[in-house]
């Protein structure tokens, strides 16, 4: 890889990794997401610093151009992540609705019957 590109991609990867680290530090990410993004950041930095790894993987999967391999992997990662987010947003919306309804019902001031589910 051209030296300028390599330096540039290493710098970007490291910056991204540091950014993720700072998010974890400030408790903006739950543990499970922290781990995911840290691994992603580490993988990205590894590929930037050591292109041989990506070359090996692309040969393993029979992909001609290394860049295609990297793009393919990145897109798969993003698609799976987006699906996960959709699922998570769906459950969050459901939970929000339940909380909102509970608040509205509490505001009526009438005592709550606890045995709703049985």
């Amino acid at each position, binding site marked *: 890889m051209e030296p300028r590109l390599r330096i540039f991609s290493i710098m970007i990867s490291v910056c991204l990794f540091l950014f993720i*680290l700072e998010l*974890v*530090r*400030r*408790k903006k990410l*739950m*543990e*499970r997401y*922290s*781990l995911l993004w*840290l691994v992603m950041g580490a993988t990205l930095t590894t590929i930037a610093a050591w292109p041989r790894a990506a070359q090996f993987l692309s040969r393993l999967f029979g992909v001609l151009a290394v860049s295609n391999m990297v793009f393919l992997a990145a897109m798969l990662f993003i698609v799976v992540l987006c699906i996960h987010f959709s699922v998570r947003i769906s459950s969050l919306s459901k*939970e929000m609705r*339940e*909380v909102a309804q*509970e608040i509205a019902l509490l505001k009526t001031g009438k005592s709550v019957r*606890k*045995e709703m*589910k*049985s």
Partner: protein
Amino acid sequence: MSERVLIIIPALNEESNIGGVLDRLRRQTPYRDILVINDGSSDRTSAVATECGAVVADLPFTLGIGAAVQTGYKYAFEQGYDYAVRVDGDGQHDVTQIADLLAPLTARKADLVIGSRVLSEAPYQSSFPRRVGIRVLSSLVSRVVRQPVTDTTSGFRGANRQAIAAFAEYYPDDYPEVESIIWAHRRGFRIVEVGARMTERTGGESSITAIRSVYYMIKVVFAVMIELMRKVDVP
């Protein structure tokens, strides 16, 4: 001046155990302030607890043990309790030992007290993978907090006002028992362990196989590392 103690009982689908726990608390201990946190149970846990005279907080859906316990700490904080002791709703903890948990707290020697199965005279009989898991976790956590911690997953704990305030504000989610020890240490809280007898869960086969123990431990190790990275804001 008498200091107020709150007993926090997180419970998820424990309709067959919660009555017994509350009954033992009433007959064998002097503590009358009890909060049961019903973590979205689908059975009659909440109704049974209310019948036994406990204050019950019903979470609208299941949030997990970390959030349930934190709800208890929030209540303790808002109601101005001096100490909060957690007893699990499944009946595994021996309520007569609550006084043992409170002793280091009232003597001002500790901020967080953990009831350790390992330190008790009657050794806890659990499966081999579990015991190995407990030992590995304990050595990891002991190294991190630079003091011996023998039972990192015990939920049988006592906290004083400062610890209550801190936990009400932040309590970890994924592996709360282990991570909270790390966090308490980083906040500068004094952690002390006392021996505590616990009984094996009476109902249900243990689903922890050797493979799952290893998988669980790897995840906990990562969670511990992440907990170490988090920023400590001390007010």
